[in-house]
Every structure is written in C-alpha cells, then in structure tokens.
C-alpha cells in the first residue's frame, strides 16, 4: 500500500468511529465524581453569611458574589457587589468568563438548593475557585439584616461581629433603596467583561 492508500484507510476508519460518537458542543462535567463529592462536602466550599458580610464591608476584591435568583428578584435588591446569573440561564452561558478568574466566586440564592446545584456544575467543570453562601439570602436576612444585640455585656469578638453586621446591613439597605436608574448604573459598573476567544488573524 502506498502512502495515499494508507492515509485514506486510516482517515476513513477514524471518521467512522467519530460518526458514532456523541460530540455535541454542549458541555459535561469533567471532574471525577468521587473527587468532586469529597470536595463539595468539605466545609471549605461554604462561606457563612457573616463571612460574606465581612467581604462586603471590606469591599474585598478577591471575592465575586454571584446571585442565582431571577433577573426580577435581582433588580429589586441584591447584596452589594453581586452580579446576576439566573440559575435557569447558568448552563446556557459560557461560564469561562465568569468563573475562570483569580477571584473566588461565591454563589447564593434565596435558599440552599440552587447554590448547591451551581456549585456541583461549576466545580465539576473544573472551576476550583467556586464557593457557596450557606443558607442563602434567608440566612443573610436572619443573621445580618435582623441582627439585634441583646444582653448585658459584650465581648470584643461579639462587638466586631455586630459592627460588621450593622455596617453590611447599612450598605445593603442604602444600595437597594437607591432609585432604579442609579442601581442599574451601579450594577453596570460591576459587570464582568465577557472574555472573547483569542484567535484567527486579527
């Protein structure tokens, strides 16, 4: 057999194999399930509402909050600094721009379900820098928004925690009480620039 016939035979056989493979452009999780399981059950993938409040108060730039609620809910109010990726759009989006970053992404929704799903998807796709806020906005309200000091004495630690909560609550209320136009402008400034794939001859 000459080179042409060899090459033709190889390519045709490989082509036949390919024709049988499901090669949809849709993505699937790549991590090994057992590795992923032990990863997400680790407490390190969870932040408490208090920790998130501290990120908000210190305007920590190594953290990106991702709000999974619907666009309408997000428009009404959100934690300062958060961006919105509605959970039902999560899997239709190109997550690369949002999650392949040096900052830690923290998912939150109202409860625990959607952030839990999102964590599996994101970490399963190999984005290691993803976390959740435990208890979601319900917990945030419970801990931060409705925090009230009661008692006689206060330790330094409690005092610091209380101050953070108060400050976070003030920031949350101030931001979300703004008129819609200002709110929209604030959110635009937080938006992440979509990465464009590099290539071609441009």
């Amino acid at each position, binding site marked *: 057999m000459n080179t042409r016939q060899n090459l*033709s035979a190889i390519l045709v056989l490989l*082509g036949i194999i390919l024709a049988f493979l499901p090669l949809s452009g849709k993505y699937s999780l*790549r991590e090994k399930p057992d590795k992923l399981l032990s990863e997400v059950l680790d407490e390190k993938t969870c932040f408490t509402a208090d920790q998130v409040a501290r990120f908000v108060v210190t305007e920590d730039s190594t953290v990106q909050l991702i709000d999974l609620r619907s666009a309408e809910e997000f428009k009404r109010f959100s934690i300062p600094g958060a961006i919105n990726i509605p959970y039902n759009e999560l899997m239709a989006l190109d997550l690369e721009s949002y999650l392949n970053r*040096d900052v830690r992404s923290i998912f939150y929704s109202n409860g625990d379900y959607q952030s839990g799903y999102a964590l599996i998807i994101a970490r399963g796709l190999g984005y290691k820098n993803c976390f959740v806020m435990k208890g979601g906005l319900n917990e945030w309200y419970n801990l931060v928004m409705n925090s009230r000091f009661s008692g006689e004495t206060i330790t330094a630690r409690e005092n610091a925690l209380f101050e953070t909560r108060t400050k976070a609550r003030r920031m949350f209320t101030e931001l979300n009480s703004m008129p819609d136009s200002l709110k929209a402008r604030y959110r635009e400034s937080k938006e992440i620039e979509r990465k464009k*794939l590099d290539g071609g001859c441009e």
Partner: protein
Amino acid sequence: MGPITSLPGFPAWLDLLIAFIIGIGFGFALEQAGFSSSRKLAGMFYGYDTTVIKVFFTAAIVALVGSQFLSYLGLLNLNLVFVNEYYVTASIVGGVIMGAGFIMGGFCPGTGVSALSIGKIDALFYVLGGLTGAFLFAETYPLIQPLANGAYRGPVKINEVLGLSPGLFTLLMIAAAVVMFWLAELAEKKFARPDITDKI
C-alpha cells in the same frame, strides 16, 4: 484539559514562547511539504502538481479528527477553541482577492515567509508586497469598513448549518478528500511536468 494557555494564571511570556515554537513547526512543515516553491504551489491550478490540495486537506482533516478525539477523551475543551467568525461578504470578496493574489504571486503569506527563509528572492518581494497590502488595507479601512463588517453571522459551524453531527460531517469530509486525493493523482499523471516538479 486544554487549551493549556486558558488555564488561570498562565504566564504571558510562555504563551508567546509557545507561539514561536508553533511557528517553527508551521514553517518546518510548510517547507518540507515543498511549499517554498511557487511553481509547485501554482501547479495546483494547472494540474501538473497537486501537492497543495493533498497537504492542505490532509492537514485540515488530521487536525479536525485529532481535536474531536481529544475532545471526546476529555483532554480538550472545544468550546474554548476559536471558531472563525463569518462575515458573509468579507469572506467571499476577500477570498476572491486572495485567489487572484495567489495565482499572480504564487505564494500565500505563510508559504511566502517560509520560502523567504530559504533564500527565495521572489518570496522577499512577495512578503514586501504583503506588508504593502496590509498597509493599504489599513489606510483604506474607513472606505471599506461597511464591506468588512457587514453581514455578520457570528462563529457559525458548518455542521450546524447542515444539521449534521460533527462526527458525521467529518466522515463526509474525509470521504470527499479521499476521492479528491485519488483524482489529484490521476490529474498529476495526465498533466505531468516532471521538468518543473522534480527539481524541488
């Protein structure tokens, strides 16, 4: 999981080093294919030498088949590989202009640079012409902008347009290429010009 350079924290200098190394491979492969000879390249259009079609389609298919296997085996994320964007008129008009340039100059930019590296003086003139062409394009860009940016369709894939799976389309493309290779060798026998091609 590839592409490697899209991993977070990948250093920029290494990215450029990879570009250089890939360039070396590119130049080496072009020169080894005999693409540093303009008469061999032009032979494609007169039937006496069909190296271009053989190399070109073999290369495209090897990369296509390879990338799909890598993707299936979970080594390469094809969603992160650049897909050329389709500007309908620009692609066609640009292609026609390129075809005219091809038959006049006998090179395309890659082969021209590779021929320049082994001392072809005509390739030097070709590359200088190429630089002039890029300069002219930049200067006439305001005039030609509507044509260049019009009829934008985004990064469309041909198999999606045809409604086929990527694997099936690949198989069809391979079948077409195999037939083409066979025809090319028949043409080479018919229009043989050993005086031109054997020298290379």
